[in-house]
């Protein structure tokens, strides 16, 4: 097994299977619904033909996978410091990635890859689509060595020569953070309700829709599903239904947490952090602390009681425009850690634990806009309905509950909204249920905008937004004179030093 990457080489031979399976899976996914309907409706001979056709497709996919494997080579050009990939059967593609542009190298293991015992390696660059640079089947040892080369070849190639020689097993020393199953259970019970609710709604809708589709396929949809749902409401009392939904929600939450974060380990690895987690598919991420732009930790009421923090490290994607979703994918999350682990991690990323500084709070006019748009406007609309449609009148307890809950939420968000500024850090606190602290260093600021409504001029109220390469941080309805002083101070910090932001 050579660890010399200067000669073009192929993937692991298992790549044939992985590639084939990948293509077959994609084909099946595309044809799934028509195929399923066809199988349900077809007679025996047609079914047999379909089976043969299916086998033929799978064989073709594997033949394609084989050629794909033959034509896919990669190598590292040590002179130009470039990583080169050649691929494609009919149309050839020649990809060259300058090593200095590489931001992150991910080694993942999907389900099939776990069975065969290979890994996939993805290279995240500034400017290229990460899907492009995806080596789907690579031996674990080679993957680790290649990652070492790619990440340490940067900047000072000569100096890091020694580091490359050290075997990748160095990563197996004592992890900084290791999440046990019990902690994972706690995490599952206390966080990410929103995502699980969305998942459940999506799932429920899919089940409802699919059952209807199947019934339609058999031509006997007389609205049984709707009937069942309706009778369900009369059968269960609402209380039991609510309890069932809560249990289902918590169960989904716990399962999701386990699948995503099982055996979560974070360890320090020369100058970078190595994070690996996952039950079915294990995901490895390596990141440089100095590429982290925003460090965020958050805690909700329940987590505060058991001393659990959630952390999120937001990274930069230099020189490239991206959507909100992509920015989210760039975040590395640590689902749960205790106070000491949190401080340890902060020290690693920021080189110190931020404390002290002056705190700035918003003016009470912060409440105005949300109260108008989320309370008064809906109330007026309901008022109109109340007046014209007598049916709407029975819902007034719901409306009152909405009013109280939303008002409390707006008020909490107002009391939690604040910014703390010290010489070395800017900490923005916000949230309603999950109270998050976003920390940025002034040198990470890319640009600053301030804004003010004309009717706030006399009151001296204004807003400020700090733009970084991993998203923005805003502080609204503050004292504008103070904000202007702060802005001048931050500008001075950014412009006087020649500190790099990455």
């Amino acid at each position, binding site marked *: 097994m050579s660890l010399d990457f200067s000669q073009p080489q192929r993937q692991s031979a298992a790549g044939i299977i992985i590639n084939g399976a990948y293509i077959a899976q994609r084909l099946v996914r595309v044809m799934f619904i028509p195929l399923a309907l066809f199988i349900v409706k077809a007679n025996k001979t047609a079914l047999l033909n379909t089976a043969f056709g299916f086998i033929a497709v799978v064989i073709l996919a594997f033949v394609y996978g084989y050629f794909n494997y033959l034509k896919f080579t990669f190598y590292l050009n040590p002179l130009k410091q470039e990583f080169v990939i050649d691929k494609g059967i009919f149309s050839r593609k020649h990809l060259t990635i300058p090593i200095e542009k590489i931001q992150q190298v991910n080694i993942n293991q999907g389900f099939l890859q776990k069975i065969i015992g290979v890994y996939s390696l993805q290279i995240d660059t500034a400017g290229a689509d990460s899907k492009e640079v995806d080596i789907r089947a690579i031996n674990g040892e080679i993957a680790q060595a290649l990652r070492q080369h790619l990440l340490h070849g940067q900047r000072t190639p000569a100096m890091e020569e020694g580091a490359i020689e050290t075997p990748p097993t160095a990563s197996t020393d004592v992890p900084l953070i290791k999440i046990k199953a019990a902690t994972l259970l706690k995490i599952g019970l206390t966080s990410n309700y929103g995502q699980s609710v969305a998942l459940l709604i999506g799932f429920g809708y899919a089940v409802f829709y699919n059952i209807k589709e199947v019934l339609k396929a058999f031509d006997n949809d007389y609205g049984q599903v709707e009937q069942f749902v309706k009778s369900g409401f009369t059968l269960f009392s609402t209380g039991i239904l609510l309890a069932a939904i809560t249990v289902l929600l918590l169960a989904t939450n716990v399962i999701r947490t386990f699948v995503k974060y099982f055996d979560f380990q974070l360890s320090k690895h020369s100058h970078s952090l190595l994070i690996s987690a996952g039950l079915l598919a294990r995901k490895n991420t390596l990141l440089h602390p100095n590429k982290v732009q925003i460090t965020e930790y958050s805690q909700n009421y329940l987590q505060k009681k058991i001393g659990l923090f959630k952390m999120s490290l937001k990274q930069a994607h230099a020189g490239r425009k991206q959507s909100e979703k992509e920015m989210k994918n760039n975040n590395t999350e640590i689902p749960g850690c205790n106070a000491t682990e949190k401080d340890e991690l902060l020290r690693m990323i920021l080189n110190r634990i931020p404390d002290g500084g002056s705190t700035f709070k918003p003016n009470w006019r912060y409440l105005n806009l949300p109260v108008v748009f989320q309370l008064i406007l809906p109330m007026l609309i309901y008022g109109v309905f109340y007046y014209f449609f007598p049916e709407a009148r029975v819902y007034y307890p719901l409306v009152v509950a909405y009013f109280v809950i939303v008002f409390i939420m707006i008020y909490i968000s107002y009391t939690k909204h604040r910014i703390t500024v*010290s010489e070395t850090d800017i900490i923005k606190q916000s949230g309603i249920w999950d109270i998050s602290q976003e920390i940025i260093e002034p040198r990470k600021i890319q640009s600053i905008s*301030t804004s003010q409504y004309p009717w706030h001029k006399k009151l001296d109220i204004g807003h400020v937004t700090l733009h970084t*390469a991993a998203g923005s941080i805003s502080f609204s309805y503050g004292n504008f004179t103070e904000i202007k002083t702060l*802005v001048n101070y931050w*500008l001075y910090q950014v412009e006087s030093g020649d500190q790099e932001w990455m």
Partner: protein
Amino acid sequence: MQHFTNETIALDKLPKYEETPLTNPDPKYWRVIIINLFIFLFLMAIALGLLTFFNESVRANWMLWTTLFVAFAVFLCLISYASFKRRGFALREKDVLYKSGIIAEKTTIIPLNRIQHVALNEGMFSRIFGLGTLQIYTASGSSGEMHIAGIEIEQAKAIKEALVQRLVINTKEGNE
């Protein structure tokens, strides 16, 4: 806390971005805005005309619709003029400032050492009047970028050149 208040004296002496004299866009740029506005209003008028032609109820109330349209047009013109008067930019030794806004007054500041690249854009009507739009990009994506419209083309080129020169020097220093 203590450390921060220790800096207070220095804070007062720091250059104040809010007191920087701003250069307004070229007066000719107002014509470009007006032309764009009239094209937009013209298209809307055509749509309204078609609606009056085909729809009974609109035809019956054509007076009302026309009044609404005229009011909207006047409102748009006033708003555009207010926002035009508010615009201004300044190139300081170490950063670029741009003030704009339709209702809220927004000032964006980009430090020169954070600029990723600079582009000069000439729109069709802007070109007729010899104007250009300077676009300044940072690594923060669309949220932190700056479009300064209505600069006289020669001046825009000069500013762009200056920014690019500064950029090159900056990156060179960074590499060394």
